[in-house]
């Protein structure tokens, strides 16, 4: 894991309401680096989030909307955020009241720094 990735995930994990932040590849759904609270199944989070990203990409491509760069899934007890560039995705699991704007900026910064 690069120093940038460690720093980026650390920044995301420090945002109030964030329970887990990880980097994974879409092609295999495996986490390359992660920071997570106790009780969060990181492997499951990476696998399901990347599967969701793949489906979203297929749907957007089929609709002619181009590549999927960011998706957010709202549930009654939490939110899932996925930002992607190429095969790499950044996944954040947050509480319902987590700061979506800040999380999104940090996720894009995390991806940008890996180029």
């Amino acid at each position, binding site marked *: 894991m690069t120093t940038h990735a460690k720093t980026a995930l650390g920044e995301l994990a420090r945002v109030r309401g964030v329970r887990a932040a990880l980097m994974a590849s879409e092609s295999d*759904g495996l*986490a390359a680096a992660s920071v997570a609270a106790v009780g969060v199944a990181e492997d499951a989070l990476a696998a*399901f989030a990347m599967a969701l990203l*793949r489906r979203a990409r297929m749907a957007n491509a089929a609709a002619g909307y181009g590549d999927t760069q960011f998706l957010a899934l709202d549930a009654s007890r939490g939110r899932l955020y996925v930002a992607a560039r190429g095969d790499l995705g950044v996944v954040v699991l947050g509480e319902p009241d987590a700061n979506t704007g800040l999380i999104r900026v940090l996720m894009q910064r995390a991806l940008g720094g890996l180029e």
Partner: protein
Amino acid sequence: MTEHDANAFAEPLLAFVRDTRVQMGLVLETSGRVLAQHGFTRSLDVMSACALVSAIHASAAELGRHLDGEAFGPLHHAGKDRQVFLAPLRCDGRTVLLLAVFDGASSLGIVRLFWQEFARRVADAPRAPTSGAAPDFERELQHNLAVLFGRA
């Protein structure tokens, strides 16, 4: 394949295939005896796959014992369009193998995740004691491998 084996492995395998969206799934003993399958269209394919998977596992396990002191765990091979995941699991004192063949509709992460769930389901399923023939065959296979690697 006994009726008990069919019940013990068929339903967990079906759930595994449904959850992971793999194209083909196969459960077998290390001797190559099939316990359950899903997605194979011809019986010959199943037999060929069982023989190959059994040989691959035996080779990989022996290599693991030589290099690492114990048999290697799950094995993954990625092709251009398809991938295979081969994993052993302990069940009633014997090793059972799971083979999954998948494409872009699934991923290694998903398959690995539900392989653990499959192992839990198999462990929870009721089954009858295994017959005496397969362990004998397995012992013989292990002995022959040991001879082959100069350990006997």
